[in-house]
């Protein structure tokens, strides 16, 4: 019998408990490819079975995720000078970049909140971008804590309620997440193209 990566990670959960879960959610917030939603669902199952405590599982997952977000944000912030220099270089692309980082500062909170749970695969990149665009730390942290709370409670809740269906339910959830993320990216690109087309017409017309 060959063990998948997911199964070997799940086998470590009863051995190392909540600290292991915190490590997994932290790594996933830094764009490392770990199946954090699967591990969280299994942790919910162990909590429902009485092997782990709900308090420990929820607080560990939340702590790891929020710490990972902060790490990503400050990594991005450390690169913000480079971005600033690129914005000040002048020209069309620099202007677009400046507009994008201005938009991130103004309305980044919604993006941070939604990419914690509904569009979670995009989360790590939004962390770096928010830091690099010099988004306010308070606004970022508030959206991060709110979004991660939804993520953690949602997956631990599903895991606790569906112990018998973990192996058939998880692929459905990960596919649905893939559909949502690719459609969100396609939507953003379509908006960008519409804007470009409009700009092109204005240029021709005026």
């Amino acid at each position, binding site marked *: 019998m060959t063990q998948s990566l997911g199964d070997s990670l799940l086998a470590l959960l009863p051995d190392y408990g909540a600290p292991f879960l915190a490590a997994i959610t932290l790594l996933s917030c830094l764009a490392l490819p770990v199946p954090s939603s699967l591990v969280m669902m299994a942790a919910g199952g*162990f909590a429902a079975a009485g092997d782990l405590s709900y308090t420990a599982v929820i607080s560990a997952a939340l702590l790891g995720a929020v710490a990972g977000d902060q790490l990503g944000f400050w990594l991005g912030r450390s690169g913000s000078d480079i971005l600033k220099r690129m914005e000040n270089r002048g020209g069309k692309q620099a202007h677009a970049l400046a507009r994008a980082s201005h938009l991130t500062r103004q309305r980044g909170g919604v993006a941070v909140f939604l990419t914690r749970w509904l569009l979670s695969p995009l989360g790590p990149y939004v962390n770096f971008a928010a830091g690099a665009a010099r988004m306010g730390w308070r606004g970022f942290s508030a959206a991060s804590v709110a979004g991660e709370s939804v993520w953690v409670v949602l997956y631990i809740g599903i895991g606790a309620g569906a112990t018998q269906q973990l192996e058939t339910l998880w692929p459905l959830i990960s596919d649905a997440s893939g559909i949502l993320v690719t459609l969100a990216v396609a939507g953003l690109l379509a908006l960008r193209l519409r804007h*470009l087309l409009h700009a092109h017409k204005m240029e021709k017309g005026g």
Partner: protein
Amino acid sequence: MGREGMKHPAPLRVLWAHHKPTLLLLVVALVFALFFAARFVLHVAYWHQMQGTRPQIEEWMTPRYIAKAWHIPPDDIRAALHLPDDSRRQTLEDIAKSQGRPVEALLSDLTVFLHSHMAPPS
């Protein structure tokens, strides 16, 4: 192409001529969306097929996890695995290791026990 066509070229043609990378990225994103949608449909069919059947036990599960998922008293599972009442949480893999037998043997014994213990799913 007539004068009208020159004045208002098709939007796709304009974007292809001037913003090829963005347009290509959009196509790639849509292809991936279709891929995930197809996988989702397949997984829904599999999930539907598995309804009413008992899922397999896995080596990462603990006795209490199995008790919870299969609605069997934890003491019965512990007895079937010859575990003491005060045993700490450990995976089936660890239990097999400490009992010095292959995990496959433990899994198949436990599966037989689970099937004999409960009525077939309705």
